[in-house]
């Protein structure tokens, strides 16, 4: 499809682009910051609202550089929450300096756009461009609180690690191009098949090098080392965003690359991902156990969660694909919700240590309860969303016969219960020193409520989500 015709399917992105520039202008014009925030959210809602027609038709846009399928629609909807909730929580928060909020919103909107693009392409060039752009923006967001030592350090680590990972990724991409002679993933299987078995080593090498780049994005062990530091150091709304958005897109891209470009090498990458999945979840969980900083616990937990999602990817059966995306969706609400609560507490207490959470159940029962629900969901306790997700990943492993993987995951889930309940324990069981109630921040509470609603609703009525993912998968399969 040529660019002009493509624009018809490009309305959400156009709205976001427009919003980026409008808000930038209005910011310079001195519009009050909360209004900029509301506008940004309105833009996000508008972009989702502009989705029309049959969502599950597949279209190629911009000379096949972009693909518009069920998954990209899914991403467009998810982005509303991934970006919208942190923005909503930031409007009344002091975690992002008031003066920077205008730029912050612009950056977030730009990221929303880039994330959508990242999720709607099967072209190496576009993948690189979007991935790198998302990374660069993320580095900047992490470091945006520039007088915060931890934030700037996190930003630097993120930058350096990301730069090396991207370089490896690009090198892998260049090899892949050399082998296949094309940048479009869809053309690759045939081209690669022509090379014969002699080229298998090179193909796998290219794949592995690319895996490093995406592994960095999804914080897959052994490429996860940056994640805890960055998540801990980043401003909390940004950290929440980072644990869900780039990771979700990383998974989508990885899924696309592996299934579209390397279906022949399924056995290799599947076996590899099984091992890495075990490694990731184990490292994430084991490291989290001895932490006493809530944000860092959640950071390691999000590494571990990546391991669970990898289970579905490793299986890569139909159930596996459902598992990946259902997990991502539930994880979005749950983990983001948890980070939002952490942000509220941090703003009030100025600390993320477990001590700050002691007695929270008395000081603000609502916050304590919501955080507990998020943690329970992360631990996979029914009837919350996390359980459905866990159910699917376990199902995918069992279904395809990865028994050892399933067992490792089960053991890991039990370990995870331990540290999640460390937080719960601090909130409910330990007596706190302070009695003063936590200040109310209605917008942030609204954001938390939305995440909470998602967490509970998906848990009780998962059907719509499953149906959506099924349709997305169908449209993807017709490629």
């Amino acid at each position, binding site marked *: 499809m040529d660019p002009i015709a493509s624009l018809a399917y490009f309305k959400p992105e156009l709205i976001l682009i427009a919003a980026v520039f409008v808000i930038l202008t209005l910011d310079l014009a001195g519009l009050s910051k909360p209004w900029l925030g509301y506008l940004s959210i309105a833009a996000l809602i508008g972009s989702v609202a502009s989705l029309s027609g049959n969502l599950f038709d597949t279209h190629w846009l911009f000379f096949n550089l972009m693909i518009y399928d069920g998954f990209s629609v899914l991403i467009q909807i998810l982005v509303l929450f991934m970006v919208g909730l942190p923005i909503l929580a930031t409007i009344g928060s002091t975690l992002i300096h008031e003066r920077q909020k205008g730029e912050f919103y612009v950056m977030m909107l730009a990221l929303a756009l880039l994330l959508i693009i990242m999720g709607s392409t099967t072209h190496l060039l576009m993948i690189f461009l979007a991935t790198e752009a998302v990374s660069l923006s993320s580095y900047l967001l992490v470091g945006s609180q520039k007088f915060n030592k931890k934030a700037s350090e996190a930003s630097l680590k993120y930058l350096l690690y990301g730069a090396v990972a991207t370089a490896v990724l690009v090198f892998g991409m260049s090899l892949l191009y050399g082998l296949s002679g094309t940048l479009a993933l869809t053309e690759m299987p045939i081209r690669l098949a022509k090379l014969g078995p002699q080229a298998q080593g090179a193909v796998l090498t290219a794949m592995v090098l690319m895996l490093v780049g995406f592994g960095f994005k999804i914080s897959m062990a052994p490429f996860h080392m940056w994640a805890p530091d960055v998540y801990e150091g980043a401003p909390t709304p940004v950290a929440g965003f980072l644990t869900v958005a780039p990771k979700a897109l990383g998974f989508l891209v990885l899924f696309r690359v592996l299934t579209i470009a390397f279906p022949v090498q399924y056995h290799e990458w599947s076996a590899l991902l099984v091992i890495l999945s075990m490694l990731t979840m184990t490292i994430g969980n084991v490291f989290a156990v001895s932490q006493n900083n809530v944000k860092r616990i959640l950071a390691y937990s999000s590494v571990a969660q990546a391991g669970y999602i990898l289970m579905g990817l490793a299986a890569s059966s139909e159930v596996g694909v459902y598992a990946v995306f259902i997990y991502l969706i539930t994880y979005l609400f749950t983990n983001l919700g948890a980070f939002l609560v952490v942000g509220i507490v941090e703003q009030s207490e100025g600390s993320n240590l477990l001590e700050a959470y002691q007695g929270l159940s008395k000081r603000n029962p609502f916050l304590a309860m919501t955080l507990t629900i998020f943690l329970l969901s992360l631990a996979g306790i*029914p009837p919350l969303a996390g359980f459905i997700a866990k159910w699917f990943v376990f*199902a995918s492993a*069992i279904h395809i016969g990865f028994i050892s993987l399933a067992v490792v995951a089960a053991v890991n889930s039990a370990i995870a219960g331990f540290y999640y309940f460390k937080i719960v324990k601090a909130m409910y069981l330990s007596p706190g020193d302070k009695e003063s109630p936590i200040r109310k921040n209605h917008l942030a509470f609204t954001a938390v409520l939305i995440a909470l609603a998602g967490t509970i609703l998906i848990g009780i009525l998962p059907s719509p989500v499953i149906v959506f993912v099924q349709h997305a998968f169908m449209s993807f399969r017709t490629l």
Partner: protein
Amino acid sequence: MNFPILTWLVFLPLLGMLAVMLTPKQNEKLIKQIATVVSALLFLLSLKVLMAFNLHDGGIQLAEKVMWIPQLNVHYYLGIDGISLPMVVLTALLSLLACVASYGIKDRVKEYFALYLLLETGMLGTFLALDLFLFYVFWEVVLVPMYFLIGIWGGPRKEYAAIKFFLYTLAGSLFMLLGILAIYFTSTPQTFDMIALRQNNFAAGFQHIVFLALFLGFAIKVPIWPFHTWLPDAHVEAPTPISVILAGVLLKMGTYGFFRISYPILPEGAHWFAPWMGILAAIGIIYGGFVALAQTDFKKLVAYSSVSHMGFVLLGLASCSAMGMNGALLQMFSHGVLTGALFLLVGALYDRAHTRDLSAFGGLGAVMKVYAGILIFVSMGSLGLPGLSGFVAEFMILLGTFKIYPVITGLSCIGILLAACYMLYTVQRVLLGKVNPKWEKLTDMTGREIFTLAPLMIVTLAIGVYPILILKFMTPAITALVGLLS
């Protein structure tokens, strides 16, 4: 089906929980009233189910089946049969009594009763669910409120006990989850329907593995030796009403799992593993008895006695015979009643003396006459005195198992002996001997406490004297189950 009685049974407490949450924190009286009324209604509902129950039908009754997650073929499927009915009645009864016994809770009343009602939903749901998915959901729902109830309102080492309980059970249930998934994917057509799954003849090797996975989940809950170590801690630290629920209902969930899932769906696995279960049961019976004998903490003693008594349930299960399994089911009921009563008694004593150290007491028989009478009564029930329910159950189990595992059963008989030893030793240390002047001022049982204990005593006596009262509900279902096993 005009009135979805089972649904009401499961979700009425949830409604109650919402009502409690909407009540202002200060209005503790209203909160207690709500919880009590809900629990009482629940008990009445369970009686209604009892009335509506068809005695001659060994299958599922009053079933309610609605599609829940069509993509996964998950149904909202509730139903009751002779196996779950006693458990439901027991749960409803103990819930009501423990709720009344909870009036003594002073701290964070609102949260307590909200969680308590949530717990009720989880327990009843577990016993009524006939869909594996739904079963797992309720199974896990029980965990969370229990964690808080132990962790917030418990004793000095409550945090340790609570997390230990939680993690142990969570670990077990995760393996159970794997087992459930394996069953689902292997069945044709793929289904979570426990009843439909009985038609599947799974391969023997598969049954063995899956049985083990499920066993792990259930065994930890029961708890079967050597997975029992969470139990003493949890029991000792939990507040009295929660100990009652824990011992009275939660432990039964584990053995219920065998009755409901492992045995009917995996008969081959059951036969394969039954001897080992018998051995574990015997070890648990004797081990629990001996360890109970060594206790000086009243509550811990009762806790270890639970290990011993639940061993009998397992022994009955291991027999795979009608009599043994009938006995096992009866023992579940009876142990729930008796141990519940014992914990209430321990709690009553603790409320007065603020210690549970058995060596600190003595001669209370002269000071607290009613208490003494009730304690002796319940102890006698617990040690298997004929005429009380414990005896009938243990008798049936031993008699039913004897033919199949004579040696194991013979050894298990030592458990009866040990029960006499530790219960009498306890009675002696608490009630007999000279009165410690420190305790001369202790008041006797209050009306509320007697109210909580009297129904349990009546039930124990009624079943002990005329067991057909309850056996008639169980027997058809057990017969059907034994039919599946052979």
